């Protein structure tokens, strides 16, 4: 896995209090990782800060899994 992916997973682990081995690419934040809607907003804002990217609302609505987050950051950071 790329180092970007590792960093994204690190952010997810910190924000959602989960472990890296739970962060499978298909893991859904809300259904699998115990996040609520505020957590997902916080997570997106944290990713924006850490990677210096802007994630528009209509894009962030579609970032539902660990894989989605990694893909977005890899393509845009």
């Amino acid at each position, binding site marked *: 896995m790329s180092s970007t992916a590792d960093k994204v997973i690190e952010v997810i682990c910190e924000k959602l209090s989960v472990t890296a081995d739970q962060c499978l690419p298909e893991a859904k934040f809300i259904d699998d990782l115990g996040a*609520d809607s*505020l957590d997902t907003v*916080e997570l997106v*804002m944290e990713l924006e800060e850490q990677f210096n990217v802007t994630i528009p609302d209509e894009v962030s609505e579609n970032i539902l899994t660990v894989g989605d987050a990694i893909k977005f950051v890899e393509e845009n950071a």
Partner: protein
Amino acid sequence: MSVKDKVCVVTGGSRGIGLEICRRLVADGAKVALIGTREETAQNAVKELGATADQVKGYALNVADGTAVGEVFTQILSDFGQVDVLVNNAGITRDTLMMRMKEEDWDLVMAVNLKGAFNCTKAVMRPMMKLRKGRIINISSVVGLTGNAGQANYAASKAGLIGFTKSSAKELSSRNITVNAVAPGYIATEMTDAVSDAAREAFLSNIPLGRAGEAKEVAAMIAFLASDESAYITGQTFNVDGGLVMQ
């Protein structure tokens, strides 16, 4: 009550009710970041409170300016380390009958009273969410519940604050952040000094307790809502009005 060492931000803390709120919080051992529109008004109020520089600091800010709010709250967070309590108290009036009310009168009152509270709430949300606790108190007015001829703009802004209070309370409840509103009635301050004698007489005659309220009587309610004791109360509006409006 337990506000000791809590960091409290009070907008419009340089005069009137806001200054009394600061005085009470300081007396109860809280740390206070006080906001006025100008450096001068803010620093005069800090002096008047007579606390140490560690306990009270003053900041100049127009709460209607979202960018400036972001900057000043970042400064407050770096000065005090965290924010436990936000009191959205800054407010203005531009009273006149609607027939004569200008669009600017409407926009300005909305921008300071309603958008100001939104701006400041946004600025403390993330730090409070991280702390997993917080208290936000919005100063509304009984006029927001009853309406008042000559105050269409002001009453709308104060009623708006109640809807804003309830929505923020619901959004933030899962993070143990409570949001409540306080609706003062007729409190003797510079804001009410501006009212004509005849209007004042008429107003006072409708108050069951038969007198104007004192700013420190509003501050007492704020001290309670800011404390740990109010933990199970959120999304509510409390009138401090001598019985003027009974729900």
